[in-house]
């Protein structure tokens, strides 16, 4: 019997719960959230396999999915990892990701998988980067861009990311640059189309660099309007939406194949919270099946990207490739 502990019943957590209860290899999903009203609503909408973690016993769960806000993941991962449980974290703050990746040796010693940054971006973008890289003899550059937000926590993280420090990888060194700089017009799958994207405090490079030996450049950009950039230094002037609209991600991989320089561009279009929930739920199931290496890593550590992407297609999360030139 497989029991999953789901911490966080927000936009992503609710979608992850839905994916988990529909999986045949999951028998019970214990849902925990400090907001009792939200937790009860998710439990009731998720069917018979979902139970309210407010009163349930969490001592014999097999795996843990952390879908709460940034800043709440590191201690939870330490706790569950010490109990020998594989953990999937949706945290996407740079500091959280750095601390979670640093738990790698401990996770190896415990023989568990700690999947870091398992969402739409990072997460799905890491799988797309790995999938695109497989067709290259050598990967020189990886550039990730994303547009849109999931739930309110994601919107707050988006707001904060435009004022922090961007972390890029270039020629064997970490470069710290001002978030909100480096405007680049990126083309996302239709109907999103073109969006101005800027450097931001995103953890994608931290997750991708360890998985791609000798990669020369890794960058991540966030789509933002000029209004977003101007108001980024102020507190959010209005409450974020319960859930954002359709978002998109784009991964550009440059490298050499057959002695020739080439570019591969993959992307996806979906509601970010829906895609993040599906990716996180599948990542946890794969971790429990032993299909994700032990230690702490992002989803670029997956070898069977075809299998992962195919299972996501089955739940409606589809990738796209850009063909042609601009």
């Amino acid at each position: 019997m497989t029991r999953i502990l789901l911490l966080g019943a927000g936009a992503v957590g609710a979608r992850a719960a839905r994916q988990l209860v529909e999986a045949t290899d999951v028998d019970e999903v214990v849902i925990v959230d400090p907001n009792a009203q939200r937790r009860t609503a998710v439990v009731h909408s998720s069917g018979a396999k979902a139970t309210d973690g407010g009163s349930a016993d969490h001592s014999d769960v097999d795996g843990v999915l952390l879908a709460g806000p940034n800043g709440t993941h590191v201690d939870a991962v330490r706790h569950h990892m010490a109990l020998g449980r594989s953990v999937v974290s949706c945290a996407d703050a740079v500091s959280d990701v750095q601390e979670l990746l640093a738990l790698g040796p401990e996770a190896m010693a415990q023989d568990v998988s700690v999947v870091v940054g398992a969402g739409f971006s990072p997460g799905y973008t890491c799988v797309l980067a790995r999938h695109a890289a497989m067709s290259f003899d050598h990967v020189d550059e990886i550039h990730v861009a994303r547009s849109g937000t999931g739930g309110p926590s994601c919107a707050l993280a988006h707001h904060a990311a435009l004022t922090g420090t961007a972390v890029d990888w270039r020629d064997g060194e970490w470069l710290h640059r001002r978030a909100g700089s480096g405007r680049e017009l990126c083309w996302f799958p239709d109907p999103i189309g073109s969006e101005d994207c800027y450097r931001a405090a995103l953890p994608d490079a931290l997750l991708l660099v360890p998985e791609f030996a000798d990669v020369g450049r890794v960058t991540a950009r966030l789509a933002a309007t000029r209004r977003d950039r101007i108001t980024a230094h102020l507190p959010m002037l209005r409450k974020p939406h319960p859930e954002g609209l359709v978002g998109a991600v784009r991964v550009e991989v440059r490298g050499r194949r057959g002695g020739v320089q080439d570019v591969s561009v993959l992307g996806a279009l979906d509601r970010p919270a829906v895609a993040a929930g599906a990716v996180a739920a599948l990542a946890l199931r794969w971790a429990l099946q032993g299909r994700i290496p032990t230690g702490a890593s992002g989803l670029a550590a997956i070898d069977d990207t075809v299998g992962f992407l195919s299972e996501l297609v089955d739940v409606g999360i589809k990738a796209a490739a850009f063909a042609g030139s601009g």
Partner: protein
Amino acid sequence: MSGVGLVPLLTDDYQGDAAMALLRRALLAVGLAGLVAAVLRIRGTGGTPPQQGGWRELSGPDLQ
């Protein structure tokens, strides 16, 4: 007498007022132009769309 009939004399005060009016108009024009530019910069979009190619769903051979 300081003047003849209704024709004003071009005194230093009059010249100063005219210069201030000109300056105020110039500042107003620059301000309005700046405001319009700011609105266009905040709300405007740009860029040339790709002239060839497009997105296609990954399927079949792409996922093998």
